[in-house]
């Protein structure tokens, strides 16, 4: 269908295909404002954000330390494991393993581990460790693959060994690996915070309680603190100090659990085994699968895809609108500073939280999820596009304003833009599933309901379906990027 080319014709074709699909998705979507007094709720929220109340240090400190501990332990250990997997990424089964582990959102992993290890530090640690290992393996292998191979070739014709790898590729990629690790630490903090939404004692736990009770001033105080934490990360977290932070995190919160082996064994050999299979009824199992698919899974998959498609196109439109405000080619320094800060705040705010806030305002429909996903993802892509636009070498006498944007900058960046957008497609889809936990009927909704009904076999079935869906979309995204010959560094913010 699409020739292996990055000609503008093919890029436009793909763009229209995506917009067309989003339009069809829009026809099937449920977008309506359900809350009777959204503006009243919004005014209360704004009032809270204007007059934030900060929690007492006594309550805040443990939640803060636990949030940091989960993030540091999980991210650093997953970076190490991911790095090892990245070295063997040419094996299909390693790629599949990594793809599977990152296809399941950290909240779902947490929900699974809570059943075995309770609300323990081990649960929080594993919930971050597993999906992040998959992400690190993929991105690290891409970074290592793109490295200049000339030094390696000049040294030996024998199969590369560890010494050669250390002296050549590792050193040449070190800066990129380090930057990615520090970006992932920021993501890890977000993930760690939202683990509180399923009950782990992190900042998200307090945040959710404040929002649910309508204590917006307290919620605002906590959110501001979270932003400061993320912004200060860049200055506080030096890679050389990381071993110290890791040791401190493990000492403060050793990843252990007091769950019993019998319980765990029961969970694995009974609870998550599909009900008919417990009695060896294979025909019943087929019926069980059919019923779950027809009653829930298909609907969940359909809604997840619809939501992801609309959110993807909205993300694209918003990214292209926002990035000039952050780019030196269009705006002066003060404006850029304001835009930069705004984008940091928007991307620091987890999608889950943005949806939560939009839900309070607009009520339960797909609209809050679309807003949240588009805002979060476009703030990341806009930031990256602005950085890339700074690298463009334009003639001094070229157009200004809109003409510069449409004739000089956009055509040059469009391939990169599509690559970044496709890169986040899988991420958006994964997030749509998780937003189901807030009542939007995506796959996550059915997973969450199954957990609430203590039907772990069903929960696992839906989780596996969501993993297959994410892995499929990931493959389609890779296919498009390869066919269109578009390429962009992964999300190095």
């Amino acid at each position, binding site marked *: 269908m699409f020739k292996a080319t990055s000609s503008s014709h093919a890029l436009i074709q793909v763009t229209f295909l995506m917009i067309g699909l989003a339009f069809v998705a829009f026809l099937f979507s449920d977008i309506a404002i359900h809350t009777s007094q959204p503006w009243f709720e919004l005014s209360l929220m704004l009032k809270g954000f204007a007059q934030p109340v900060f929690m007492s240090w006594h309550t805040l400190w443990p939640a803060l330390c636990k949030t940091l501990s989960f993030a540091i332990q999980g991210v650093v250990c997953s970076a190490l494991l991911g790095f090892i997997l990245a070295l063997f990424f040419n094996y299909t089964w390693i790629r599949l393993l990594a793809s599977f582990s990152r296809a399941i959102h950290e909240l779902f992993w947490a929900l699974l581990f809570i059943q075995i290890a309770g609300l323990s530090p081990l649960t929080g640690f594993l919930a971050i460790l597993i999906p992040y290992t998959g992400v690190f393996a993929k991105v690290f292998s891409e970074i290592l693959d793109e490295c200049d191979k*000339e*030094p*390696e070739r000049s040294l030996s014709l024998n199969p590369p060994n*560890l010494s050669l790898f250390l*002296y050549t590729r590792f*050193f040449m990629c070190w800066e990129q690996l380090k930057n990615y690790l520090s970006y992932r630490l920021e993501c890890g903090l977000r993930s760690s915070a939202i683990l509180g939404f399923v009950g782990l004692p992190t900042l998200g736990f307090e945040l959710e309680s404040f929002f649910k009770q309508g204590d917006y001033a307290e919620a605002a105080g906590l959110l501001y603190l979270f932003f400061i934490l993320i912004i200060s990360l860049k200055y506080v977290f030096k890679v050389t100090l990381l071993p110290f932070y890791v040791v401190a995190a493990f000492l403060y919160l050793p990843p252990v659990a007091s769950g019993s082996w019998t319980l765990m064994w029961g969970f694995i050999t009974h609870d998550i085994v599909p009900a008919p299979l417990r009695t060896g009824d294979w025909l019943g199992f087929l019926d069980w699968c059919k019923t779950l698919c027809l009653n829930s899974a298909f609907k969940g998959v359909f809604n997840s895809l619809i939501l992801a498609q609309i959110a993807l196109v909205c993300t694209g439109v918003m990214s292209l609108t926002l990035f000039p405000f952050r780019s030196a080619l269009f705006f002066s320094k003060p404006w850029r500073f304001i835009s930069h800060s705004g984008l940091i705040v928007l991307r620091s705010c987890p999608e889950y939280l943005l949806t939560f806030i939009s839900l309070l305002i607009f009520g339960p429909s797909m609209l809050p999820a679309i807003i949240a996903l588009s805002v979060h993802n476009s703030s990341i892509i806009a930031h990256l596009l602005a950085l890339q636009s700074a690298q463009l070498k334009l003639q001094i006498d070229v157009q200004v304003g809109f003409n510069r944007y449409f004739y000089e900058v956009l055509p040059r960046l469009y391939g990169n833009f599509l690559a970044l957008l496709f890169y986040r497609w899988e991420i958006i889809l994964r997030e749509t599933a998780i937003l189901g936990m807030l009542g939007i009927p995506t796959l996550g909704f059915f997973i969450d309901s199954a957990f609430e009904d203590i039907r772990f076999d069903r929960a696992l079935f839906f989780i596996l379906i969501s993993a297959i869906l994410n892995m499929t979309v990931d493959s389609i995204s890779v296919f498009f990027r390869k066919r269109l010959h578009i390429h962009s560094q992964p999300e190095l913010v």
Partner: protein
Amino acid sequence: MSFSFKDHELTYGPKTVLKNLHLHIQPGEHVAIIGESGVGKSTLLKALREQQASTSAWCPQQPGLVPMLSCLHNIYMGRLDQYNFLINLKQLLYPSAKIRTEIASIAIKLGLEHELQQAAEQLSGGQQQRCSIGRGLFSKKSILIADEPVSALDEFQALKVLDVMKHHFETMVIAFHDIHFARHSCKRMIALKNGGLYFDKQIDTVTDDELKEVYRST
């Protein structure tokens, strides 16, 4: 150890570059390879290198240095395959006094003694090329295969470095662009033309007319 090709065909990608290649190089020989660009010099060097992968040092046209590592470490990399990983790791973190002294003596010969601690990316093109040669010298291998190794050096420096190489390596096969350098450092000359050997003779018997013919387009 010697190099040998009998009725060999060498390809570059899908294209056959050299046909019916008959060539034998004995240990102790210093051989210059000349010919127009694209005639197959690099392909021949690559094939030679494959024959003696573990015993030959290699100096490519583009010195494959690791930009962020020091000149000292880049030279040390010549011996990576001779030590185990832990020793290599230790030398990366803190090079031993013995290694430092050994590398320093090579650096003096190449005029790099003041650049040892500088990152390779901060070195000039000529310094990078000498660093790459230093790596070859440090590798303790008896054979050198090099592709225009002194192209970025001025004549005085190039001759000095070629002398060092000549005394160090028992066997050398070097592709040259500059006939003067070839005559200075080698005893045998192989000229490539039209997909094969044009001549293969002692360098002092090569005439100017023969050389002109090598570079004349057909």
